[in-house]
């Protein structure tokens, strides 16, 4: 079982690249520990900026640095980064088109029992609706590494969300197919298409295994690139399926499910069911307890797939 959280992988990539690239600057809002960026702060104190608990300033200062040639990586809990500093992300990063990578850590319901103030179930909706903002939710540590390396090659704004805890591997060190802004096909099948992002990809893949035992063949798509959304992959997955399931650690409104439904409604109309968090503060518990409660696990996803196939 993997014990390395995606946030640590981000630090490792930045540590490796910052050695040669002195324009890489990492900024935190008293979040270096929770972002796993303490080793970076220690190794490259001249390329690390502590902003204190001030997320709005974190984002604007990142934009100012970027405008002067820096490659700014602003890391802060996704809940604060995406809503407390939303306007700074919109105006100073996206609208001014600055080379800032926003890293939302401990995203979704990672903080579990800490409650709704610490949950970011709105970040996909918020960030995706801003012109010139890209949104990525990598599914495992190998994909996270490839994504960060790809983002270092361009100079455009992006928002990345990762969770707090280690997640099971989907890919392998030497077997992680990755093409920027193209979804990854994990399983092919004609009965149901399951389209998931972030840490919901693994339970979706496990659900496909459960379904296979019952003779149901699921197409599973890892849509780490929520924006720009890989529409061609959605159409391909949905065209041959009888129904589509979307799975995301996000509110029901304005997230992956909404975006996939728009594409399918326009291009290849058929039944789409969205599995997402409820429109209410989630029940108290660890993230896995919460996922189990709402059926956002392999068994729950498989059950919903069977239900919609029998309609």
């Amino acid at each position, binding site marked *: 079982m993997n014990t390395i959280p995606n946030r640590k992988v981000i630090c490792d990539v930045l540590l490796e690249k910052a050695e040669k690239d002195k324009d890489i*600057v990492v900024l935190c809002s008293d979040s270096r520990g929770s972002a796993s960026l303490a080793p970076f702060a220690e190794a490259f104190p*001249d*390329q690390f*900026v502590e*902003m*204190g608990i*001030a997320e*709005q*300033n974190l984002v*604007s*200062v*990142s*934009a*100012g*640095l*970027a*405008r*002067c*040639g*820096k490659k*700014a990586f602003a890391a802060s809990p996704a809940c604060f980064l995406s809503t407390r500093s939303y*306007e*700074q992300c919109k*105006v*100073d990063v996206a*609208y*001014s*088109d600055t080379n800032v990578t926003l890293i939302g850590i401990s995203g979704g319901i990672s903080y579990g029992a800490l409650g709704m103030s610490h949950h970011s179930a709105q970040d996909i909706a918020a960030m995706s609706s801003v012109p010139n903002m890209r949104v990525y939710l990598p599914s495992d540590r190998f994909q996270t590494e490839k994504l960060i390396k790809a983002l270092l090659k361009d100079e455009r704004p992006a928002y990345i969300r990762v969770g707090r805890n280690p997640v099971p591997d989907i890919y392998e060190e030497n077997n992680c197919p990755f093409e920027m802004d193209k979804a990854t096909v994990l399983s092919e099948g004609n009965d149901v298409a399951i389209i998931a992002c972030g840490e919901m990809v693994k339970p979706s893949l496990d659900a496909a295994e459960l379904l296979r035992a019952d003779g149901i063949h699921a197409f599973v798509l890892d849509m780490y690139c929520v924006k720009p959304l890989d529409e061609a992959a959605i159409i391909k997955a949905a065209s041959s399926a009888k129904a589509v399931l979307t799975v995301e650690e996000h509110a029901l409104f304005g997230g992956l499910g909404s975006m996939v439904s728009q594409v399918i409604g326009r291009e290849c109309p058929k039944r789409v069911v969205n599995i997402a968090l409820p429109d209410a503060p989630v029940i108290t518990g660890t993230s896995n307890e919460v996922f189990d409660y709402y059926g956002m696990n392999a068994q729950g996803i498989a059950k919903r797939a069977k239900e919609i196939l029998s309609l």
Partner: protein
Amino acid sequence: MSELSKLAYDLRKDVVEMIIEGKGGHIGGDMSVMEILVALYMKQMNISPENMDDENRDRFVMSKGHSVEAYYAVLAKKGFFDINTCIKEFSKFGSPFIGHPNNKLPGIEMNSGSLGHGLPVCVGMALAGKMDRKDYRVYTVMGDGELAEGSVWEAAMAANQFKLDNLCAVVDRNRLQISGNTELVMGHDDLHERFRSFGWHVIDVADGNDIDQLNEAFEEAKTAKGQPTVLIANTVKGKGSPVMENKAGWHHKVPTVEERIQILKDFEEKKEAL
């Protein structure tokens, strides 16, 4: 500096024409901020169309982005674009000359419009200068009403923490905002003390519409070491014509045909008296 003072009145005329053509604009603040922009662009900053790709150029962010008409007039005078094109196209359908600064236009570093963004962005620019050991300076102009935004004070705190003596902020202290007197809306009369307590070097510019006083203050700012500087520039909203001066209603207003004639006449008289 009487030439620059006269120039400020000529540019005010451009602003009036721009606002009439575009059928809207934040005219009161344009008038109060004009000398600040003229002093910065014509005397203080090494910013020109020729050096916009030079890493050593000074940096400027118009934090009170609603005074974009004054900003456009100064940028045009500096040669970034043609003033007649700007006046003709301002706020028109499909125009690049929109009602707040945007960096698709030459000469503009950052998009602004929402208040409380300029100082935080400038902290990042000044920090980059320190990191790269460059000696450019970073300037921003804020409105006084804008200082009610909490993000301004997040940045004020950080600028002192990082000892950004290459950063100079200017407050266009015209004492009026949309709803009226700033002191009745959200008071700032302890502004000097407030900035001092945040670790800033504070310079009061008694007449913020006086080019010489402004230049003197900007020169003093360069001598402050280990801390950022703020100029509290005491200006007059609607400066230049009694039709507009110190009237909150002129925060955003289009002069009528008669008002335009009177305002332009007042500008000319003020200019001649310099």
